[in-house]
């Protein structure tokens, strides 16, 4: 390509020409071989995506027949992987129900039992660790999360001079994560729960960047769930095992709450700091709390997200 002075050798003979053509071919062949070889790790790709899953339609477009097939595929896959036949359901929101969570900061002692009950109920990966609830140990007098300690470890909680604030998905009425998802893989259901279709998420993690509560988690690798701790009571939009490369988060234990039960974090709380129920029912605990208690904190209220998760005090 460079302008060079012509030399005698540049008057290429036929033999030299064909030799060079041969060498070009050889280099091209070498390049293609290296190209193929560079993809060798892909041989370890296990069921990255079965064709059945690859072609699966969007949750809201699945007919009841499709859903039956999808559920039996999931049950089959779980059985193959864990040796346990799960019971997977596609539970729909109930009419006249909108969930609200209230957490009593006066009561919480920071024992983190909710964190682990949640992991156990919702089949989260144990290694690497995925947890939906993060408990912050906060100095008395401040609601500034920057002052929170996430990794405290204590033989005896609560510690003097601190209060504890568990944070999980706030199930916003105006969720930023839903707005940003490029493929509608996450949306708010009419009972207020923001859900994720794990079979539709492309794993761009934009929702994770958008969430002001750091409530979303990504499966950076294939989740690891010990067989003996698998919870076989599963829901499609809930706690069925996730795949590598998709988002997940707290869904108010859809597999329990849409069957009328309390979420797992609430049942395990040793001090009754967690309250959950239907805000549209005036008789519910949460309606009572909203009526009778004075101060509520919607975390980062200035974000305009309007959480369905309320922190309150009773003394």
């Amino acid at each position: 390509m460079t302008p060079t002075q012509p030399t005698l050798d540049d008057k290429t003979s036929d033999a030299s020409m064909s030799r060079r053509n041969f060498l070009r071919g050889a280099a091209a062949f070498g390049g293609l071989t290296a190209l193929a070889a560079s993809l060798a790790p892909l041989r370890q790709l296990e069921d990255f995506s079965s064709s059945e899953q690859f072609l699966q339609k969007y949750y809201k477009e699945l007919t009841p027949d499709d859903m039956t097939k999808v559920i039996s595929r999931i049950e089959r896959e779980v059985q193959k992987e864990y040796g346990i036949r799960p019971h997977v359901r596609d539970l729909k929101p109930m009419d006249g129900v909108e969930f609200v969570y209230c957490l009593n900061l006066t009561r919480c002692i920071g024992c983190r039992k909710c964190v682990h009950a949640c992991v156990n109920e919702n089949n989260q990966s144990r290694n690497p660790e995925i947890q939906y609830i993060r408990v912050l140990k906060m100095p008395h007098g401040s609601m500034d999360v920057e002052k929170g300690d996430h990794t405290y470890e204590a033989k005896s909680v609560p510690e003097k001079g601190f209060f504890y604030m568990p944070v999980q998905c706030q199930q916003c009425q105006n969720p930023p994560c839903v707005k940003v998802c490029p493929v509608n893989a996450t949306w708010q259901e009419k009972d207020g729960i923001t859900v994720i279709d794990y079979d539709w998420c492309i794993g761009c993690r934009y929702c994770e960047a958008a969430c002001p509560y750091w409530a979303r988690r990504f499966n950076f690798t294939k989740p690891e769930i010990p067989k003996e701790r698998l919870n076989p009571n599963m829901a499609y939009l809930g706690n069925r095992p996730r795949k590598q490369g998709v988002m997940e988060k707290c869904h108010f234990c859809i597999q329990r709450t849409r069957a009328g039960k309390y979420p797992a974090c609430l049942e395990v709380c040793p001090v009754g700091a967690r309250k959950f129920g239907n805000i549209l029912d005036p008789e519910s605990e949460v309606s009572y709390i909203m009526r009778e208690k004075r101060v509520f904190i919607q975390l980062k209220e200035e974000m305009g997200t309007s959480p369905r998760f309320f922190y309150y005090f009773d003394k």
Partner: protein
Amino acid sequence: MSNNTVTQYWLGALTVVFLGLGGFFIVNSAARPATGKKIPLVDVKFLDRTASRRTYADLVKANEDLSDYDCYGCHEKGKPPPIRYDANHKIIVPKEHSDVVMGHGSHDRNNLCYNCHNEQNLLTLQVRDGREVGFDNIPQLCGSCHGPNLRDWEAGAHGRTSGYWNHSLGAADRLSCANCHNPHAPRIPTRESAPPPHSLHGPAGHTAPHETTP
């Protein structure tokens, strides 16, 4: 050397480099990136959701040994046991009741057994206004002093609940005062915290040199 020869050498060298690279890829393809650290499974004690204490009502329901509540097995009917104090006006707990820790109310203010126990009938409890309350109806007793807590508890806003929030699908399982609070020392005891979170490449909130995984 002429340009043409140099080009030929380069093409030859490239072929060799490409093939070598291909070989390297094949040999190296099975190498797994380091899996990182081991995270032990959380101890099942942190998953336990049973009540921390069992009440008289629980024992009756489970048909279990109620000998602890058989007061007149030892005490004499019609003769209320006397209460003794030490020099500091602290109550002396008799050795037969050494499991009782007195700690109700700040500054030991509520340290009279007969504030709650019925001295006329040890098998029942009594409210300060004299009403008799059974061991299976503790909230009535506690609520006589802790009114707002009783009100919250009745509404479901105080205390532990499990089971069904939707009562048309099942019953809520409510715990009563003594399931969590020891009546003699009602403050909830402190406990060990469950393990802290592990972040993906190092402990959360700390910088750890990232393990490169070629």
